[in-house]
């Protein structure tokens, strides 16, 4: 325990010593002023990072070692052939390069698709893994979006502060929803969560003084290391195109949002894939399969359920922040039941619990309606038909959730 805190503290101190002269002293003409916030912030960041690394190491040590007695060869997944490893490098590279080849419209669609990927990954934890049918997932999306918008409006929070704060806020809302529905299953749970989603939307719509009601809230556009993405910076700011010495383009901001969002999606993907094979993820699935058996095995079903709600909500909240950041404006009409239904459809079509399936479904279901713009009147119809067809021919979703298989012999 002492080592746990000692090492990060040491790191923080070193950072503090090293960065104070560099970032703490700001020259102004011939005099200088002392800014104590920035080195402290850096030191705190270093502390958190180091602590995170150590905890991560402990955490992964606590993973289900795939049966020590079986002596598994490391990395020898029977389901992980060469092409899959190649894809895991190729796809992120394509994803990162993509925004530079898209026009403004394409970028907007791509951002939207990634937001839905996040939402679907979040809901996949709740519905796919933990088996809790949540029909009001849009509530957390709204909390994230409004958390950022109102946080800026009232507290002057920037994008980077709002991102973790709104995520935590959404996770808190997840817990809030989780408590009363602990003993509910299936249809009953669906009804209550549906109500929860509506409650959040109605609050946003009717609390004029605080949320601006149907008029919505203006959102401040994100900045990157103090650089702004507008043509002309606000007082004292520097627009990024001047900083980089390139011509101004209105795409720059969207490219930036896309890139950050893409990295967040990768991070969340890594997190949820990892979680699936950790005790927490396993207990989510076990809870879905049989609650009584879980409890009699010593699993605290309350903690497990609440953690699923909170984790799913948090990811949904992050999606909301990005939605607000990319739109520049939020109002309650973006958070109707239709959104919940859409995300649920994505998870079901992708295959409950299947991470790649859900990602693909999210992308397809965002891009498809854009391609079908000419038939926009029939969009929902096509959607419904696709759903029916899927249920008939691929009831388990696009990609069936796979269970890892180990290549091993007995020793």
């Amino acid at each position, binding site marked *: 325990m002492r080592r746990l805190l000692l090492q990060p503290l040491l790191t923080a101190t070193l950072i503090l010593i090293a960065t104070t002269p560099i970032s703490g002293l700001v020259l102004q003409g011939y005099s200088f002023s002392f800014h104590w916030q920035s080195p402290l912030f850096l030191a705190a960041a270093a502390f958190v990072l180091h602590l995170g690394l150590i905890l991560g190491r402990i955490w992964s040590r*606590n993973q*289900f*070692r*795939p*049966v*020590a*007695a*079986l002596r598994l060869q490391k990395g020898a997944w029977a389901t992980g052939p060469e092409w899959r490893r190649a894809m895991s490098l190729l796809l992120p590279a394509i994803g990162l390069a993509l925004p530079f080849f898209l026009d403004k419209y394409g970028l907007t669609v791509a951002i939207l698709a990634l937001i839905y990927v996040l939402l679907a990954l979040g809901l996949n934890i709740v519905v796919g893994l933990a088996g809790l049918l949540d029909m009001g997932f849009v509530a957390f999306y709204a909390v994230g979006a409004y958390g950022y918008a109102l946080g800026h409006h009232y507290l002057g929070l920037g994008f980077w502060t709002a991102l973790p704060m709104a995520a935590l806020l959404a996770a808190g809302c997840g817990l809030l929803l989780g408590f009363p529905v602990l003993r509910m299953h299936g249809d009953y749970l669906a009804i209550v969560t549906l109500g929860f989603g509506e409650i959040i939307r109605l609050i946003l719509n009717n609390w004029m003084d605080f949320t601006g009601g149907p008029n919505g809230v203006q959102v401040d556009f994100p900045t990157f290391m103090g650089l702004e993405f507008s043509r002309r910076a606000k007082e004292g700011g520097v627009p990024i195109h001047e900083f980089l010495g390139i011509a101004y383009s209105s795409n720059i901001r969207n490219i930036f949002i896309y890139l950050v969002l893409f990295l967040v999606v990768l991070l969340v993907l890594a997190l949820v894939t990892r979680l699936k094979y950790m*005790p927490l993820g*396993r*207990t989510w*699935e*076990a809870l*879905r*399969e*049989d609650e*009584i*058996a*879980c*409890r*009699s*095995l*010593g*699993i*605290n*079903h309350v903690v497990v359920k609440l953690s699923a709600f909170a984790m799913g909500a948090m990811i949904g909240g992050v999606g909301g922040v990005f939605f607000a950041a990319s739109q520049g404006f939020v109002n309650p009409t973006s958070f109707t039941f239709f959104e919940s239904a859409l995300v649920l459809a994505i998870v079901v079509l992708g295959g409950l619990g299947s991470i790649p399936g859900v990602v693909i479904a999210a992308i397809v279901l965002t891009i498809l309606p854009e391609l079908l713009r000419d038939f926009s009147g029939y969009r929902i119809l096509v959607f419904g038909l696709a759903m029916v067809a899927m249920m008939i021919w691929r009831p388990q979703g696009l990609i069936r959730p796979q*269970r890892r*298989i*180990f290549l091993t012999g*007995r020793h």
Partner: protein
Amino acid sequence: MAEASSASATAPVLEMTKVSCRYGPVQVLDNVSLTVSTGEIVTLIGANGAGKSTLLMSVFGIPRVASGSIQFAGTDITHLPTHHIPRLGLAVVPEGRRIFPGMTVLENMELGTMALRKRTSVAFEGLFELFPILWERRQQKAGTLSGGEQQMLAIARALAGQPKLLLLDEPSLGLAPLMVKKIFSLIQSIVQSGTTVFLVEQNANQALQLADRGYVLGSGRIRLEGKGQELLANPEVRQAYLGKLA
């Protein structure tokens, strides 16, 4: 060593004192008292609806007892939250097996270790010796196993938590006679390896042959208790549960 084991053999590991249980207005258990001592196989037999499963699960607080107390290895577990109880070294194979059908055999067994403070799979080697079929099926979804294999998995999952006392609820339920025989011989080897077993059965004949001691439950009360062989010979038991006239 022999002295130590004989001394501990008399120590009660599970002690239920005047336990009553009700589902709404219906009294299911009425002042039930029983003990299980270390190293024993104790069986509880009774007809359908006698309250056997209720009694077994009430040890885990599902349902909570209305009155009376339950002690496990000297700890009062009557009011302990369900998920704390397995951590003390108590495991159950619930009625109808209740394995996790969508998860693999290995994952099911891993979940059996959740009650351990330090999750290890050291017990798995031994379990695979005991249940070789599970090793063959280790990557298969548990729902695709046959009934007998699922029963073995349920037992293996419970044993993965290295319990002191194993509660078994009708392990012979819905199994072919040959498989029943196999399961009972497995239970015997589990006891020999040092785990105490409390067995709830409808298959009175098999259960009593295996057990050191037995209790007969009828309409929520303990009707008879005694050594397994004694009960087997008891005319009342024979008439009521073995379908033979005395």
